[in-house]
């Protein structure tokens, strides 16, 4: 099996895995990084959303060979990116902090993906519109959508 070399949450890793294995399984089953969740495996539910080079992507739909030499951030590493940028609040990325303060989560299963999608939106725009938020398709079966919307807007207003 080929060695796949890439960076996860700032640390270089080398994993033996076939080129076509979805990165989600490399993260979860080989590296034990369980923040990205399995919810569908076919890029629909978005529960496995992470950042590749800072941009949102679903790990279930990206083969590991495609991330060779790239940098992946999972929910576990999001706060560190804010710390490194000098933008952390209470040790958290502003999106995580607002999520906490506004008590967005219910069961919490989709929330790593929701937070990574929201952080990506706020990277792209400092003034997210309702249409921008409507375009986020991450499924939340508990129905936290109202709080997700409010939290994204609150985070945008607080972005350092």
């Amino acid at each position, binding site marked *: 099996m080929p060695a796949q070399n890439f960076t996860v949450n700032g640390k270089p890793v080398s994993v033996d895995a076939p080129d*076509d*294995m979805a990165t989600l*399984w*490399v993260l*979860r*089953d*080989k590296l034990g990084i*369980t*923040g990205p*969740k*399995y*919810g*569908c*495996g*076919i*890029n*629909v*539910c978005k*529960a496995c959303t992470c950042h*590749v*080079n800072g*941009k*949102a*992507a*679903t790990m279930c*739909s*990206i083969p590991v060979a*495609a991330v060779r030499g790239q940098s992946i951030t*999972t*929910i*576990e590493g*999001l706060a560190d990116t804010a710390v490194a940028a000098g933008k952390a609040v209470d040790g*958290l990325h502003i999106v995580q902090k607002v*999520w*906490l303060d506004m*008590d967005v*989560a*219910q*069961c*919490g*299963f*989709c*929330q*790593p993906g929701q937070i990574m999608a929201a952080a990506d939106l706020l990277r792209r725009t400092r003034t997210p519109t*309702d249409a921008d*938020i*409507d*375009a*986020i*398709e*991450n*499924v939340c*079966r*508990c*129905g*936290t*959508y*109202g*709080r997700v*919307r409010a939290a994204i807007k609150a985070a945008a207003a607080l972005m350092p």
Partner: protein
Amino acid sequence: MTDPTRCPQDGSTFLAPDGLRRRSLLAYALSAPVASVAAGFAANLALTGDAQALPLTPPDTVDYYDLGDAVLQTSLPTMPLVRLSVATDGRVKLELPRMESGQGFDTAAAMMVAEELAVAPAQVDVTLSDARPELVFNQLTGGSTNVRVFDAALPVMAAALRLRLIAAAAQQWGVGTAGLVARAGMVVDTLGRTLSYGSLTALAAALPIPAGVLPKPAAQNTVVGTRQGRIDARAIVTGQKKFTLDLAVSGARPTMVRRPPTVMGTVVSIRNQAAVQAMPGVLAVVALPAGGNITPTPPGVAVMAETFGQAWTAVNALDVVWGKGTIDGESNATIHAKLKASVLPFAVPPLGALTVEGEFEMAPLSHAPMEVDCAIADVRRNAAGAIVGCEIWAGLQSPIITQQDMAATLGLPVSAVKVHVISSGGSFGRRLFWDPVQQAVQVSKLTGRPAKLLYHRADDMRHGRGRPQQYHRARATLLLGQVTAFEHRIASPRLDTRHGFGELLTAAAASAPATVQQSLGNLAVEEALFKTMVSAPYNFGVATRTLQPAPIAMNTGSYRSVHIQPTRMVEEIMVDEMAARLGQDALAFRLANLRQDRAKAVLQAVATAAGWGKVMPKGFGQGIAVHQETRSYVAVCVEVDGRAQVAGTGPAVVTRATIAIDVGKPVNLSGIEAQLEGALAESISIVLMAGLHVQNGLPLEGSFSQYRYGRNKHYPKDVKVIILPNKGDPIGGLGEVGMAACSGAIANAWARATGLKPRKFPLYFPVDFTPFPPGRLPDPVVNPIPV
């Protein structure tokens, strides 16, 4: 006390002797609910002699005794076994014999304990109990009963703990307890001396448990009734919260299952077992043995591999010969015909009466929790190869019966099976059954390794349990401008109730052999659940409501609010149509016919806040509904955009929602709002657009792109939740309570917006996708990295 419609829950004071309120009574005598219920029933029967001129609907079973009462009654005897303690570091430990799946019960429980122990909720560590058979009925999660039941016990237990800590401090200081108070995790005396709980706990443990303990009066509460964030919120937002398959169980290997092309199809043979066994990463290929003690083990061929990716690929490579399933050839249409034929006819209406009638269809639903069905099992053997034990990890609403079932399956004593209940990624009733555990145990037994078993989402929707489709027929009889009769007939494939609530509700065992699909026990339990959960808040004269379960062997299970959501939604639609027939306003008609003051209060609150009756643009409509369930009252007003350019090409859109709730005693304001927001999102989904098309014995839907559960864009941007203040009424349930009124209001608003009668649910339900072929899983999608 002359109002014959006055119900026990509205007049709790008379239930308790000597002027004690109901909560106080429970504090004194944990067996009180039985006596209370009996007293209430007798009192109401006596009062019905005062019937007034109007034809009044006799009180429902639920008015006197509901599922929550049953759970309370059967849980209280073992409440002293629930573990609440203070550690030497001062942290409070609560081990809950229930499952948390996002409903926020763990946070509410922490608040109750924090209140009485005078600590911050963050100082309370809540964990979920392993299966504890000695708790008997006190470890079932369902029916929105958790907060109701634990409100009767936890505050008293925590208050007793506080008194023992104070007594320990008094002993340490050599003083009396007078003047000593508990504050911020310490006992403080009048001189300002302090002793921390942690330093007192060993001494306090040796002191007797005081009798006659009372929780704080509600007026003195500083935690209960406030807004608190979830206790696991930080773990969630940092990705640290561990769900079942996130657990690092040593040696556990990913396992997926090739499932039949039709529901409950059987494995006849595997044509290429050796070839699949030789595929990269594959560790084992085993057919799941048919059988099961309580419910059948779901059929299929399991593949264990080094990664789930490899298991998925191997599952799709399997060539299996399948036998017939239990509903081969059935579709929504054929099942509908059977259901429709099974309902009893209505009575002949009196001469000169008007009738309002409706026939309603509800498509089957998938619980579709974000965390798919999954479990980890480790079956252990001794050196001689004999099975000696088993350890299980899963989200389980019924862990004790799971433990008993797996012990019987493995030929082990119950004590040799350890069952860990893991906080789950949603449940909505799905995890009342333990099908994934059955499969993981079999795989571990056959392979000799711990198995971590995962359903693919497509299989979770197609082969997982769900709410079976329903047929409703309802008729109101109107005479001289009044409702004199309301008849409601419901038929549905039988709902599996072999999850333990049956034993709780009746002495009769509902656990018939797996081969007896439509046992008398199941029928009795299903009817008992129906009787103890569904209630109408109106005076509609002679009201009859019957449920006719049909012997169709599908994978069914209780779905959030079970029969209440469809039954009460239909009633609320009928109420609108009755008001229209009588030329009355939908709000005024409800207020005139409601039999409960608290129902009227939430309805008026919501009508005022939402501006009921305002002029809406063409194509838009308001809808209103009111509901009572598990001692809570809720009313909802929504606005729907049903213009042709929206509702003609896709589902109508809910643009605004106002919700008012009276739960008696609010515990966590944020949690209450969250449950109602969630019920709104779920109602939008199942009323307007999400359902399953069963065709040739299998649902077509296998993905959230096909089963149209709502997303951000479907949730209204203007949502207001009004929580009525604590007026001293008994505490009500919450988790499922929002479903019926949200659903009724949405259907009624859709009717006004479109001018159509809402009859078939979901209202937008085309097959506008290419279904995955039966049996095989969809292939993974391959995308490039973002640029």
